[in-house]
């Protein structure tokens, strides 16, 4: 859910349900590293509600698009982490097998 104004799309608060620090803190990280963002932060209004508010203010672009780009960035980072990790595990297993063969 987005809270903002139609006149000025560069500032908005996004209210995400069923999310917590896990996503919000990672998003804050990618948002803050975007040069279009002038301010960004998040809050969890009440610990009993599964809800997090993310505030995004930009230099002019629509906040919604900037947040979307940040999500995209985060997703690409995750994909890269996953492929790198899988490769590292595979390499480790191969190396272990090789050592086992050599010992025999």
């Amino acid at each position, binding site marked *: 859910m987005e809270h903002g104004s139609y006149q000025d799309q560069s500032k908005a608060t996004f209210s995400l349900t069923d999310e917590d*620090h*896990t*996503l919000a*803190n990672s998003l804050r*990280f990618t948002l803050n*590293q975007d040069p279009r963002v002038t301010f960004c932060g998040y809050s969890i209004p009440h610990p009993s509600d599964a809800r997090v508010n993310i505030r995004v203010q930009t230099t002019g672009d629509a906040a919604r698009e900037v947040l979307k780009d940040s999500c995209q960035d985060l*997703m690409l*980072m995750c994909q890269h982490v996953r492929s790198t990790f899988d490769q590292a595990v595979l390499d480790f297993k191969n190396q272990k097998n090789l050592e086992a063969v050599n010992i025999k």
Partner: protein
Amino acid sequence: MTSSESNTEVDSSWSGSEYEKERTPKIPVWDLPDVPKGNLPSHLQLQRTRVVCNKEAPTHTENIQYSGAYAAMGVDNSFRLDDFRKNLRVEVVRLTEDDIEFDLIGIDASLANAFRRILIAELPTMAIEKVLIANNTSVIQDEVLAHRLGLIPLQVDPRLFEYISENDIPNEKNTIVFKLHARCEKGGPRSTVKSDELKWLPNGSEFLLATENSASNTASKQKTYTSFSSSQDSLPEFSNNPIAPKYPDIIIAKLGPGQEIELEAHAVKGMGKTHAKWSPVATAWYRMLPEVVLLQEVKGVKAEELVNKCPVKVFDIEDIGKGGKRANVARPRSCTLCRECIRGDEWEKFVALRRVKDHFIFTVESTGALPPEVLFTEAVKILEDKCERVITELS
């Protein structure tokens, strides 16, 4: 006016993930030849990349995330995927059946922490949720017994099952049923009930539902607490690999002579944030790589003193000839940052303790449902799914 103009210039050439999609290749401003690509002064670089552990307290613990934090220095702090791809490294240190230790290098703490949080609280597993107790004459109360059963790790891939909601009828896709019937004979010694006595029932519950007119139903098949349309052991995943608790020797209860427990346990899919019994990891944690630096040479008696000061033997003594001794940092990775080595008057002048901010030593201990390396990839996938959900909701 000038400032807004310069802003639009930055915007139009900003290269996010959509950069590749653009028809004409645009050159990002920071790749133009006249943009200064200065390096940060060394003290700022140290603050940016290291946590410094002083005698009293650590300093520079925060991560500098803002893209323009070093704009005045001509250093760009914004996120670039190419750099991330270039710098990320994963090195597996140890991999066994149920734990993994690996180094995750070149990643921000917010992401490392997201992975850790997902591993603990948002990866699903199967755990016993409902216990139907037919008979329990042991000294352990029904509710305590049910709680103990819930905490037993089950060796079954949760990806083969679905979540059950409150109004669902338990079926073969969302429930696993176990039977436990243990009795201690009179006149014999006391007996111990262990987790290997939980017997898997691939056809579902054997307890009959109480109906009002049971006489009329005698001909048809009696209803039980579950309604399985097929047997679970006919599935290829389970035919050679029956579902059972991960460990056979977990003590469930102790029975005295004449005591008996008869029950059925129904396991369902759930997540660690509902109850810790669904957490797939015993624990998952990371620590930042410790860095121990000798700021000046430590020789002779002082070297001996330094080696003895450290309780985890980070330092070694090397011979420098003519009976001279010099301390060196041999095992920085085992440093626990207890700060024992910088205690005392002038030791901070000799030793610097730091932590590398983007180097995480990750350890994942699996409880047995899935291998630890699979757990981590699943956790990363969940974060991807979360991002995707936000993107679809925004567009």
